[in-house]
């Protein structure tokens, strides 16, 4: 426990931590200001009336589709039901005609709506906070290796399992605290921006359930990122190694993996992209379409689910952590 508190203390007292904290705070305030400044005001009564009228027309169209089996032949000139053999007619109508039935769909462009746009911004804030803590954690461990501080620490605490555990615990605590603090600050900021210069929208129980689930998964992702960053720094024994691997993957690694998948005619090359799985984990179940099928004989899309994404991302983090643990507990400290 002492060691964990010490690691936490050291984490908080680093200049880079203070710098990143300050930058996050300023960045958040700046973003909220820009959102408020660039948002159009909430729709005027005339604009609202127009949007509601449009939505009513779309709703009528949808209702008609549900009621008439040959709606698509009449209106579109072909039977769209054939494209969705697994769905019933009403579900196909929902799939194809649901957009526009909400007045929001017809609002003037540029209105910041907290109920929709706010969640995306909060996801972004969470991911940026996670990236910063990941870099901080990697830098703390990397700097200790490159400076010789690790050797000094191990002379005090020879049990390497405890040292590694304390470091991971401190990094995870910092990540949770940073993400929690930034979200707690971002929520009222963007809510206020929407209330002042846009529209808040309806934050009903369903909204809260969906938003909290998405943000909880994103926060969990940042914890995984922090562990992965720490593990890479522990494996490479230098901040630059961890930073290089992360930046290398984010910038070109992912692209290369996708290109290789396409070159080898892999049916779903997106499967090899970590971005795909991260998106599924945050946004929800997603369908992948085959790259190799001819248009006339398209195979069924592959559905990636949240549990599958969780397992894969968790597996990657686990493998990195296991390697780092093995390396730290077995390799010489020179």
């Amino acid at each position, binding site marked *: 426990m002492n060691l964990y508190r010490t690691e936490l203390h050291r984490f908080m007292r*680093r200049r880079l931590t203070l710098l990143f904290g300050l930058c996050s705070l300023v960045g958040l305030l700046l973003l909220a200001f820009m959102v408020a400044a660039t948002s159009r005001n909430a729709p005027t009564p005339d604009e609202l009336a127009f949007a509601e009228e449009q939505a009513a027309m779309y709703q009528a169209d949808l209702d008609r589709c549900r009621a008439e089996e040959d709606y698509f032949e009449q209106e579109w000139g072909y039977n769209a039901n054939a494209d969705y053999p697994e769905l019933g007619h009403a579900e196909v109508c929902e799939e194809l005609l649901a957009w526009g039935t909400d007045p929001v769909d017809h609002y003037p462009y540029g209105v910041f709506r907290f109920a929709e746009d706010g969640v995306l911004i909060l996801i972004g804030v969470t991911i940026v906070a996670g990236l910063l803590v990941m870099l901080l954690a990697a830098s703390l461990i990397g700097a200790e290796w490159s*400076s*010789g501080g690790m*050797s000094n620490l191990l*002379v*005090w605490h*020879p049990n390497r399992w405890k040292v590694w555990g304390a470091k991971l615990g401190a990094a995870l605590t910092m990540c949770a605290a940073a993400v929690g603090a930034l979200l707690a600050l971002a929520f009222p900021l963007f809510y206020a921006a929407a209330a002042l210069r846009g529209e808040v929208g309806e934050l009903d129980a369903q909204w809260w359930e969906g938003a909290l689930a998405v943000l909880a998964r994103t926060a969990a992702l940042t914890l995984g990122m922090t562990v992965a960053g720490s593990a890479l720094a522990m494996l490479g024994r230098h901040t630059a190694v961890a930073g290089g691997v992360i930046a290398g993957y984010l910038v070109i690694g992912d692209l290369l993996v996708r290109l290789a998948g396409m070159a080898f005619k892999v049916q779903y090359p997106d499967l090899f992209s970590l971005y795909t799985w991260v998106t599924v984990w945050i946004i929800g179940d997603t369908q992948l379409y085959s790259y190799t099928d001819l248009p006339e004989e398209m195979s069924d899309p592959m559905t990636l689910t949240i549990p599958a994404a969780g397992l894969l991302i968790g597996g990657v983090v686990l493998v990195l952590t296991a390697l780092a643990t093995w390396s730290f507990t077995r390799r010489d*400290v*020179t």
Partner: protein
Amino acid sequence: MPPVIEISGLRKTYQRLLRQPHHALDGLDMEVAAGQVHGFLGPNGSGKTTTLRALLGLIGTDAGTMRIFGEEVPRRLPRVIARIGAVVESPQFFKHFSGRLTLQILAESTGIPATRVDEVLEQVGLRDQAKQSIKGYSLGMRQRLAVAQALLKRPELLVLDEPANGLDPAGIHHMRALLQWLAHDQGTTVLVSSHLLSEVQQLCDSMTIVSRGRRITAGKVADIIAGHSSAHLSVRFADPGLIRDAAAALTDAADGVSVTTEPERLVVTGAPEAAWVTKTLADAGLYLSELTAETKNLESVFLELTGTAPRDGRAVQVGQPAPDAPTTPAETDGQTGDEDR
């Protein structure tokens, strides 16, 4: 009383790609008795720091056993680590932390009270620089801070790698006094690795000299120096022209006496005693102006034992024996080397 540190047959080999493996430790033995300042000497690359790292669990070894306070290390090192303070090489600290914060964090990690931090800062002479960022510390100040962190635990065993590194003369003097006080007044056992041979000679009670990963001698410092000193007498005359006659008189007077003439003096080896030289020369009508006994210092003993003295103006390469030196360090010293085998 059993030794505080016992090392036996320690081996550490670094495998190298496409090159011969490097034997950093090649069956090293060492013992450090309680309450002493023990010097650990050896040329560069002889395995001193490797030994200390192995002892403190920082690196693994391929063979051999190590015990500290009777506990086998590194397996049971966590049981005794609270009794050990150590500085291995020149430890670096976070540059933007102050000296006090650095020590506070370490103290906090093992539950040492914060008051102890000020005590050790005072002990190593860093009280007035405690709040200063380490970035502004000189090498000597960092070294003092490193020693301070080793003292935090009130250790029963202090392991210091080159503690005088970077210290000014006053700092070296202070460090020597501190370590001797710890050992002789507080009962702390101190193991010091150092290259400053004159410092070791003044500071240490006993020592171990290693070369190429093996112990080549060990014992009390005075005994080792005495064991490798032969009686050399330097004789000078007011008139250097008498040197040749004096050399002849001495060599004719007794068997086993050898004399080396130099332009300003002659060096007599194998004389029964200094008075014999005085009398023999006086009997021959030669009156000397100066007679001094030349005893070896630790440096010359060290160079002789480790075979690292430059030969014909050429430096001996790190990890290599001198061109005409024996092939194994043990062979350089039959008397003390044998006791280690």
